[in-house]
Structure formats: structure tokens, C-alpha cells
């Protein structure tokens, strides 16, 4: 894994977490939506907080698509789960949500998955890799060294 690729994974963490917190702030302002009032989700998209959240999540999506082009799905998702810690910190200090001690332990365990999986290989080595990857414009496979 190169520094640039780690930066792309870092971008996923930050933009994903900030986007989710913005969505939460916006939806809390709108109030609870019942199953019979699902149409209310459409105007909710134009709420400023929800709109900003969507912009952040679009950047997250580009980072995510790029990450999936050079690493396995089962590497990318746990390697970026540090975002949960960011969400917990922001929801406690910015949204005044109650994050209990047990939730903190749960979030730490989830984040522990990052420490386990991140140093491992990022891409499955396979014979068909050359067939799957395009002949032009692709990034070099990482092999089994992550």
C-alpha cells in the first residue's frame, strides 16, 4: 500500500463520518417520519444539513470506488471502520447524543478490527487477476503484501 492509497482510505473515514453526522443533524431537525409518510424523505434532501451531508457522502463515494479498484472489499470496509469512533466523538460533542460506556466499548471493539485487518494483504492474489483487470488504465495489483 502506498501513502496515496492510505490517504484515499483516510478520506473515506473523514468524509463518511462527517457526512453521516450532518445527515443526523438534518433529520433530527425534520423529526420522526412514519411509514405512511415516507414521501417526506424527498423534501428532506433539500434540508441544508442533509444537503451538506450528501455532498460529503458523494466525496466519500468517489474515494470508496477508487479504493475498491485497488483493494478487496473485505479489506476496505474494516480498514476504514475508524470512522465509527469519529461518529461517536462528533455525536457526543456536536449533537449532544448520549454515548454510553457500553457503546464506547462496542465502538472500540469495532475499531479493533481495523488494527487486525489493516496490516494484512489488501488484495486477493489470484490467477484470474490479469483477466479481471483491464489492459489499460488499471492500477498495479498489490499482490499479497498489501
Amino acid at each position, binding site marked *: 500500500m502506498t501513502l496515496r492509497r492510505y490517504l484515499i482510505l483516510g478520506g473515506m473515514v473523514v468524509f463518511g463520518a462527517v457526512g453521516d453526522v450532518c445527515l443526523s443533524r438534518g433529520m433530527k431537525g425534520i423529526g420522526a417520519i412514519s411509514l405512511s409518510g415516507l414521501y417526506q424523505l424527498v423534501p428532506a434532501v433539500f434540508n441544508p444539513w442533509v444537503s451538506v451531508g450528501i455532498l460529503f457522502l458523494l466525496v466519500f463515494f468517489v474515494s470508496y470506488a477508487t479504493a475498491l479498484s485497488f483493494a478487496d472489499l*473485505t479489506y476496505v470496509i474494516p480498514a476504514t471502520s475508524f470512522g465509527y469512533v469519529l461518529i461517536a466523538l462528533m455525536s457526543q460533542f456536536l449533537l449532544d447524543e448520549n454515548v454510553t460506556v*457500553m457503546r464506547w466499548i462496542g465502538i472500540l471493539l469495532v475499531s479493533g478490527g481495523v488494527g487486525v485487518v489493516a496490516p494484512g494483504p489488501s488484495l486477493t492474489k489470484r490467477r484470474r487477476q490479469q483477466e479481471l483487470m483491464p489492459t489499460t488504465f488499471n492500477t498495479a495489483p498489490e499482490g499479497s503484501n498489501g
Partner: protein
Amino acid sequence: MRAPLYTWLSIGLMVFASTAGDCLMSRAMKHMGSPIELWRKAGVWTVMRRMASSAEIWIAVAFMAVAFFTLLFALSWADVSLVVPAAASLTFVTNALAAKIFLHENVDRRRWAATILVCCGVALLAGT
């Protein structure tokens, strides 16, 4: 206090839609290669044309849209610090299974260990 039934039904739908979307997107991006490299070498229109011509990407985006609107629905009922980690962590487990079965990824002991850590974390998140 336990989250309402709507919240957990929403989390279940988000997990299914996210897993389907993630697997399809992963498969499509492995075929396409890095969009940033492609952008640099052939321009933004080439990137957009390639992405727009991929049926897998369209279906993946449709599943992600379902997951997104379900997230909005769930966030109107429950705390973000419960909904997002619970749904994303459960998605991690289903993704590991789906990636092994459908994408033939090498989900080794290291990745399963991470899965177990996440499962324990979800159990704590859900029980508080």
C-alpha cells in the same frame, strides 16, 4: 432503552441493500480500474462514460440509494451513534460472507478475527 422496531427493520434493510451494493461495486471497480488514474490519462468524460455504461454500477448505485433512504428514515427515529455503527458493522459481516462466496476473495483468519471483533462490538452496541 431499546430502539424502536422501525429502527431495527431499517437496519436489516440497510444491511441487505448495502451488501448487495458493495459486492456489485467491488466487482465493477475491479473491472474498470482506478477512476483517478483513468481521469488523469483520459479525462473526466471517459470516466463518466465508462461508469455510465456499466450495468453493475447502476444496479449497485440503486441498492446504495435504497440503503441511503433507509438510513434517512432510521436517523429520524434513532441516534446516529447506534444506527450507523450497527448497520455498518453488520454489513461488514455479511460483506465478508458475500465476498467469499460471490467475489471469491481470500477471507483469511486475520479478516475473520476482525469480523468477530466487529460482531462483539455490535452486540454491545445493540444491547445498550
